[in-house]
């Protein structure tokens, strides 16, 4: 038990003492996850809105595909992205392997189905009276779209939050596509896996605390937004 307690004490020292390696992993995680979240929200919310709002042929089949993609294993995404961006792959020339951009691409593939599926569910649960209300108050098509999105904002926030949770905690993509390179592509989760393997519990615990702290801050911000 002592080594766990000692790990916590050391973790506090590493965090507040400004340990370079620890903060490098934190920065890499934030950079990759910010990129992937931005991309998945920009693509996922309009697609989710379309999937939930519009009626089109093969809608059920598309929904089935998206729901299946919710369960994509991160190592499989890592494998596919690796295959595409490695030197032998079709996108090999872009030099994305072992970069944060490569990790962000993989995480976008991970987060996109979550954003689409949960946005579509939020839009589907939209009250059927909303459209009538907005049009009868004079909304244009564009105002109808944005006001409808604003009405389901809590559902969209939940979609973003769930996707963020998956992106922040995944190991497979970061490890396979990023390569866990110190000072460069080592993220919080790959560092924890590595440090634990080396028996360095304190660094692992420190990074774990940062992960929980980030989740806490994000949730505090969202609960503040909800109150507005």
């Amino acid at each position, binding site marked *: 038990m002592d080594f766990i307690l000692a790990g916590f004490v050391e973790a506090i020292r590493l965090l507040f003492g400004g340990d370079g390696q620890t903060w490098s992993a934190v920065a890499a995680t934030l950079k990759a996850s910010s990129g992937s979240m931005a991309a998945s929200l920009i693509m996922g919310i309009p697609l989710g809105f379309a999937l939930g709002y519009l009626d089109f042929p093969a809608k059920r089949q598309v929904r089935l595909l998206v729901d299946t993609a919710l369960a994509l294993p991160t190592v499989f995404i890592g494998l596919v992205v690796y295959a595409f961006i490695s030197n032998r792959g079709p996108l090999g020339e872009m030099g994305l392997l072992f970069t944060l951009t490569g990790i962000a691409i993989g995480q976008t593939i991970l987060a996109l189905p979550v954003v689409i599926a949960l946005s579509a569910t939020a839009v589907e649960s939209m*009250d059927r*009276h*909303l*459209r*009538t*209300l907005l*049009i*009868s*108050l*004079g*909304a*244009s*098509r564009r*105002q109808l779209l944005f*006001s409808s999105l604003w*009405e389901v904002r809590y559902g969209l926030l939940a979609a973003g939050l769930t996707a963020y949770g998956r992106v922040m905690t995944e190991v497979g993509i970061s490890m396979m596509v990023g390569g866990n390179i110190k000072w460069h592509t080592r993220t919080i989760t790959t560092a924890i896996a590595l440090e634990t393997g080396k028996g360095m519990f304190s660094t692992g615990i420190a990074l774990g605390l940062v992960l929980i702290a980030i989740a806490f801050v994000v949730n505090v911000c969202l609960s503040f937004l909800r109150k507005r």
Partner: protein
Amino acid sequence: MTVAQPIYRIENLAHRYNGDPVVAVDRLDIEPASIMGLVGPNGSGKSTLLKLMAFIFRPTQGRILFDGKAALPFDESVRFQVTLLTQDPYLMKRTVFKNVAYGLRVRGGQEDWARPVHDALAMVGLDTDIFARRQYDELSGGEAQRVALAARLVLKPRVLLLDEPTASVDAASSELIRAASLRARSEWGTTLVIASHDREWLYDVCDEVIHLFKGTPTGTGRSNMVFGPWVPEENGLYTKPLGDGIRLTVSAPPHADATAFIDPAAIRILDSGAASTAENIAFVDGTVTRIASEKQSGHLFADVRAGSLRLVVRVDESRLAAMTLHRGWPVTLAYRPDSIRWL
């Protein structure tokens, strides 16, 4: 002399849901600043007709002319002219102020909405200081419906369509909603189209009341609509039991569940017990519950309760002096079963 152009002209309008016809109106004109009532049983197409008139969606067939021009959803010619209040109190997930100001915001322009929002809330009996900052879910059903009406009134619309606006609110809210709607007509010349089950109110305030049945206008003014099933009798006639041993006798219906229309002018009021054995005349006993004059025609009408049924009867004014007619008075109604129209 110029004749005022109708604000609405409906031509060959038909709307279907999944192939089933819901609304079929060949021709209907509505004059500006008039009040039109729509009555009809549930599922008669009132709500769909109002939504089509509010340009919420396109009709399957036909067209609706507004100010003489055919219009469709989102057209600039109708977007800021017509507004619809639905039966269920429904608000956006925002404060009362933002709900009421929404229509002003989409119209752009002025930024100071406090005054118009205050006036609109006052029209429906809500104090701005108390309600403006409340969230949509901090209101009772009646308050929510009044806020929803205020969100329409703040626009000073040319046409206000009301779909059973008082069906799910308390009596006090109901009175405020009715008064505010009528004020819109008197202050701004707003044309009102009101669908309601409260026929008395409609007959009192409307310039015209239209009966809608299976999506089609079946007549105007006061009418008695009696639903089946009908029970065959030995003499070739049919009856509907009304409770208390009272029966309504009718001619042979086209089918057992047909709907009978009985013209209020085709019913005569006799003193109680004055039924005779005259041929081709049917009698039914009842009690007078209300006497009112119709705004549109000026005719005098009596409501008579016969068992579970309420019948409207046009009172022959030439015979009024010879009759004792007041609330609670027992009477016998006489009518010819062959004068009944069937749908």
